[in-house]
């Protein structure tokens, strides 16, 4: 190896240069698209949000009006504030549930048991089914609602009320109880949104070296201890990845998206719509920054 390096003294740089050149060529298509379909639209969206736009036969009139679009979105528009808060609150509620749930399932799916292959393929099914238009339509099925009524609530009424009483009686805070029971009630929603996250965690768990588990077993650690002392620290970087992914994934389901689209394409108020989109984007960025700040302190990196 050393002799090759020595031999390649001059040749090596040209190889590096060659690689840099090809690297640029390979990135070029993406770069063009990035400029055309991302950066320029992003900048013009920012510009639109500060202007009033009138489309007429001769084209578009864009005139700068300062922050009045933002003011209108936040103070005049009737549904914006409500939609923004609900979608962000929903997101904040769902993210920890989804991440914890998918970590738990990934640990389970990593164990050996009969029917593991089947279980895995069922749990990744939501990756395929619960996205886009199908997820939207699924919630509106009348027949399903009626059937659940007829069947005496085979799925919906898993009897969380009993559990609630037990937990409240045993002195658990009421807020926590409602949070948990609402999680149980929305189990389908949570399961269907955690397909990709399970995949990521599973991949992470499998990349943990088996020696660690062996050593801990010899030292007498139980499976429970092994989870907290080995699995969790080792996959902790992925918790951040998954949190970010879950937040991003919630865009597509958000009511906000619908409102922005409606304002833009039904009412043709492009300026207001862009201002809304930017407020939404900034709100999410703030949340992501806060989450990253708190989580990244606790992450364990091997290096």
């Amino acid at each position, binding site marked *: 190896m050393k002799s090759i390096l020595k031999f390649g003294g001059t040749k090596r740089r040209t190889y590096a240069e060659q*690689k*840099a*050149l*090809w*690297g*640029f060529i*390979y*990135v070029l*298509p*993406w*770069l*063009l*698209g*990035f400029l055309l*379909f*991302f*950066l*320029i*639209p*992003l900048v013009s969206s920012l510009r639109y949000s500060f202007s009033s736009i009138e489309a007429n036969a001769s084209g578009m009139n864009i005139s700068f009006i300062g922050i009045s679009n933002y003011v209108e979105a936040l103070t005049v528009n009737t549904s914006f504030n409500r939609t923004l808060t609900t979608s962000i609150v929903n997101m904040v509620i769902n993210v920890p549930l989804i991440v914890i749930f998918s970590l738990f399932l990934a640990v389970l799916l990593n*164990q050996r*048991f009969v029917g593991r292959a089947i*279980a895995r*393929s*069922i*749990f990744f*099914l939501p*990756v*395929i*089914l619960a996205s*886009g*238009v*199908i997820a939207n339509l699924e919630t509106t*099925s009348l*027949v*399903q609602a*009626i*059937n659940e009524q007829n*069947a005496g609530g085979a*799925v919906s009424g898993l009897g969380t009320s009993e559990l609630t009483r037990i937990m409240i009686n045993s002195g658990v805070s009421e807020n926590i109880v409602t949070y948990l029971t609402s999680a149980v009630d929305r189990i*389908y929603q949570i*399961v269907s949104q955690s397909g990709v996250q399970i*995949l*990521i965690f599973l*991949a992470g768990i499998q990349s943990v070296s088996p020696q660690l588990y062996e050593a801990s077993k010899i030292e007498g650690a139980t499976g429970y201890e092994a989870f907290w002392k080995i699995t969790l620290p080792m996959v902790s970087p*992925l918790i951040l990845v998954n949190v970010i992914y879950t937040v*991003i994934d919630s*865009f*597509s389901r958000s009511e*906000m*998206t619908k409102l*922005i*689209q409606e304002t*833009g*394409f039904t009412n043709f108020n*492009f300026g207001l719509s*862009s201002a809304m*989109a930017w407020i939404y*984007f900034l709100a999410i960025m703030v949340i*992501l920054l806060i989450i990253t700040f708190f989580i990244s302190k606790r992450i364990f990196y091997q290096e």
Partner: protein
Amino acid sequence: MIIARLLSPESWKRWLWTVVRLVLMAGLSFVILYPILQKISTAIKDKSDLYSPIVVFIPEHYSLDNFKQAISIMDYWHTLFNTFTLSAMTTILTAVSCAFAGYAFARLKFKGSNLLFGGVILTILVPPTTILIPIYMNLKDFSLMGLIPLLTGKSVNLLDSYWPFFLTSVTANSLKAGLYIFIFRQFFRGIPKEVEEAAYIDGAGVGKTFMRIMLPNAVPAIVTVLLFSFVWQWNDSFFTTTYLTSGKVMSTQLASLPHNLSIMLEGGVATNKDPFYMSMVQDTGILLAILPLIIIYLFVQRYFVESIERTGIVG
């Protein structure tokens, strides 16, 4: 001896855990499969079973009327063909362009490539709604930075055609493409450098190394990206409704199915608009729309589940 071991608390604990795990897995699998089973049972029901109190899952009268109805309203075969072409086209182009970009970001470092990779992360983070309107305007009067008007005199309207999908996927900027670039980059970073160096010493250039050495090794990543991209394109209604206003694609057809159905029912018999019946046909429509995906999943899931573990998403 054996009995003593069977009765020991250790084995009890293990058995208990096995049972708990089994129940949990079965329950959650049921939760996932329940809507699909429900849809299947609704779809094969006859209209007369709809109000029958004794029919919950297994219908008394089987009928394929719902399928016929949904197929005719959705223009199913035509739509299926359109959707398949569209998804397959964008999937393949996206995978190719993202593989190139991902490889370059992983191994072919040049000045500023880290900065550009920051751009990739940015495309993942910005909600598509933020840039939707300018993209829409841009495509409506597509000028390619003033080039096309120079040649033909006026800009072209690319909306309502496959061009937006083609252009964005060739340039690795289609739906969630940032994620695919990320996946490829992480995967290529995991392939040992020595492999590449050996190829170089044997006289392969950068292009040949990529084509002959790296890509064949990247099958897991490719399968993952292909599946994700195909499925998400298939289900996407966000971009499709914007780019393709009148094209018949599965997601738009599905979104407008309730509307079309009510028009058709009103056109026929005046008071035939039964909401439950409409919901029934809608369920059938959803089932028809996801059926191709489920069939594809059945074939690729083995590779998929295996491959994801080696994709190095984890990095």
